[in-house]
């Protein structure tokens, strides 16, 4: 591995154990990266549907989703473009609550998460169950800003953040893995930051 002459590095992380390989601490910044025009979705018009391989396909409105037991994530997020943001707080509902109502069938092993913009991302079902994934509508106690996926985004903080689809509208349960938008465009099917699964072909 070549050394870059004269490079010492400025932002030595204060908490290196919190940063997956190749990541830096973005501090108070929260960069954004999207592939599509930012949509304008009124909370009253937003819905979330869980369908595909489930016993009871179901759609929740904003009000119905808020009537489910609330849940908070406090921790770190990691973007494939190499920033990590530590100690974030998101509020919303656990994906487990939705799945408990829709009831995945025995064949369901993957989820394709769809956004109202047409964006999609694929995840193993096991990565969105057991308290590991949320529908988030609050950041730091305030409504989630539209540029960060508001009114509601998927939040799967243990994977690279492109898996946390902005403007989430549908969770489609599938038997087979089906690449989503970024995955068809070169990004990894699983995206574990601690294994540095950034691009197709990574371990």
């Amino acid at each position, binding site marked *: *591995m*070549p*050394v*870059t*002459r*004269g*490079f*010492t*590095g*400025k*932002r*030595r992380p204060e908490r290196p154990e919190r940063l997956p390989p*190749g990541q*830096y601490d*973005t501090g*108070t*910044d*929260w*960069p*954004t*990266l*999207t*592939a*599509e*025009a*930012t*949509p304008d979705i009124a909370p009253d018009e937003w819905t979330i549907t869980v369908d595909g391989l489930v016993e009871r396909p179901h759609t929740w409105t904003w009000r119905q989703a808020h009537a489910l037991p609330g849940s908070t994530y406090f921790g770190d997020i990691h973007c494939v*473009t*190499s920033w990590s943001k530590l100690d974030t707080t998101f509020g919303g509902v656990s994906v487990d609550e939705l799945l408990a109502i829709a009831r995945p069938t025995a064949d369901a092993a993957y989820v394709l998460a769809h956004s109202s913009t*047409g*964006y*999609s991302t694929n995840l193993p079902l096991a990565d969105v169950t057991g308290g590991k994934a949320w529908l988030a509508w609050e950041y730091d106690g305030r409504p989630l*800003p539209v*540029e*960060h996926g508001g009114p509601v985004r998927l939040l799967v903080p243990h994977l690279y953040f492109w898996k946390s689809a902005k403007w989430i509208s549908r969770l489609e349960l599938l038997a087979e893995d089906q690449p989503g*938008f*970024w995955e*068809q*465009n*070169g990004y990894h099917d699983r995206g574990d930051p601690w294994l540095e699964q*950034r*691009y*197709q*072909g*990574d371990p």
Partner: protein
Amino acid sequence: MSAPADATVAPWTTARAAEVERIGDRLVRLRLELEESFTYTPGQHCVLRLRAEDGYTAQRSYSIASDPADPLLELMVECLPGGEVSGHLHDEARVGDAFELRGPIGGWFTWTGDVRAVCLTGGTGVVPVVSMLRYARRVGATDRLRVCAVGRTRPELPYADELLASGALVALTRENLGERVAAPPYPSEMEPLVAGVERAYVCGSVGFASYAVRLLGEVGVPADAIRVEQFGATG
């Protein structure tokens, strides 16, 4: 949304600086020779990684400015305040320096001359579009690519001379350019550019992208025809 089937990213390779040109206070143009070159499509980006003596590394994503047929890979990097990678490239980098580089990345914000397209860019957001323009010139597809590049002043806008020579609309917001008074692009300036296009590319800061998408909407470009690449931080 469709995408190419083959989207594999090559492993890390060594990139040596063949040319380093500092442009004004904030820009540095790097022309890199890759140990293992890769094939890319205009609009794609790559990751540049710097490695310190003690093994510490820092990496950032940069759009590629060169035509895929160019034997060197060209980046135009804006120096950000406190930027760990961009600051080093601007202040320290010189010919012969070695970096690690990985690419190509992104199969969405790409143009291969197959559709009539308009590009609306802000500041260094013009970089991937420069790759598209150079490619268009080489393959004789300039009639299918129209560009509006927005910048503050002519020295601050990367590739301003090349853009003007290629017939792009250069909209400067902080100084006059010839007879054009400093202003963002007017809908009346965009209308001829968007006539008959099937796709639009928007690249710039988050604030610019949201402005650009609104402007394109005003002149009749449907939202689902717009491909966006945005960068930068929000508070």
